[in-house]
């Protein structure tokens, strides 16, 4: 799990359950104490692998939205929740966003986009590298798996869990990236997330995605791109991963307040 704190933005991403929703009120409270007011909320997630393990009072998306609506102040009046489907019931994308009215609105930087990747059915040989030996460190996992090469400019903060599992945060100037891995056979999972700009070199995101796919070689992968400006970033995703043996199976597009356009694509490996 990861937390990023910017001067006017907080991103928290947790495995496990929906407990992170409990952070909304305290974060708003501490922000208010230093003179900041909330202007936007985005909540995204994939599917539950173990839906019955989710804790009350948010055990499904409908309940999560009710809880979110209750936590947010009234001035975040533009709200939308949607489940973006894919060809696979195990890979649908749940999105909620809320933004404020004009009185509180602030200029939004619209050149940045967020890429969220969920990968399941990881290559077994590659997944084994995320099992911890007694003397294994997060840094060693970063090196032997090739994760360190995804963005060689990034400062990497990594952690190897016992007996298995891995998390890392990458810091490259004002941009973050993060990876979380659950390697156990039968429910292996890895995620990758980063931010980019539509003004970056067109090949930058392509190179990153290629390296990510090569590190995990997933059987199934979904890629969500969130961008406030119209761009063709989503098409670069296809060009990046299809030459690596991933075939696109579905693509869904939707619009959300403040978040902008979300393009959700799913892929499967042709290796099986």
């Amino acid at each position, binding site marked *: 799990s*990861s937390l990023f704190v910017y001067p006017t933005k907080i991103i928290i991403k947790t495995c*496990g359950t929906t407990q992170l929703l409990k952070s909304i009120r305290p974060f708003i409270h501490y922000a208010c104490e230093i003179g900041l007011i909330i202007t936007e909320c985005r909540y995204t997630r994939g599917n539950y692998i*173990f839906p019955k393990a989710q804790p009350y009072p948010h055990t499904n998306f409908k309940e999560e939205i009710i809880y979110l609506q209750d936590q947010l102040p009234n001035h975040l009046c533009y709200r939308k929740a949607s489940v973006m489907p894919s060809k696979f019931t195990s890979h649908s994308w749940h999105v909620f966003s809320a933004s404020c009215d004009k009185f509180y609105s602030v200029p939004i930087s619209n050149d940045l986009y967020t890429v969220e990747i969920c990968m399941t059915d990881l290559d077994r040989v590659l997944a084994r590298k995320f099992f911890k030996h007694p003397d294994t460190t997060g840094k060693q996992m970063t090196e032997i798996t090739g994760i360190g090469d995804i963005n060689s400019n990034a400062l990497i903060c990594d952690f190897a869990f016992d007996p298995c599992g891995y998390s890392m945060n990458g810091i490259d100037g004002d941009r973050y990236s993060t990876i979380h891995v659950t390697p156990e056979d039968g429910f292996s999972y890895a995620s990758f997330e980063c931010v980019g700009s539509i003004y970056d070199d067109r090949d930058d995101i392509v190179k990153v995605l290629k390296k990510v796919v090569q590190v995990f070689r997933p059987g199934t992968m979904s890629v969500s791109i969130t961008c406030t400006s119209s761009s063709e970033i989503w098409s670069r995703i296809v060009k990046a991963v299809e030459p690596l043996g991933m075939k696109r199976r579905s693509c869904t597009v939707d619009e959300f307040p403040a978040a902008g356009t979300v393009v959700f694509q799913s892929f499967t490996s042709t290796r099986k």
Partner: protein
Amino acid sequence: MAASGFEGFEKRLELHFSGDDPVIGMGGLRQVDFDSIEEVLHAVQCTVVSAAGNQYFDSYVLSE
């Protein structure tokens, strides 16, 4: 839940704030002290296992 305690697919929350320029110039949310952040994370049932930062933002790897 899986035997490892992991539920794979993450949940992601992003909150944006605005305020006066001097507040933001002084670090904005980065002024919130670490004890307060730990208190929030306690409610979320996470703890910080690794931390780093630069001039732009603070980064925490969390348990779970």
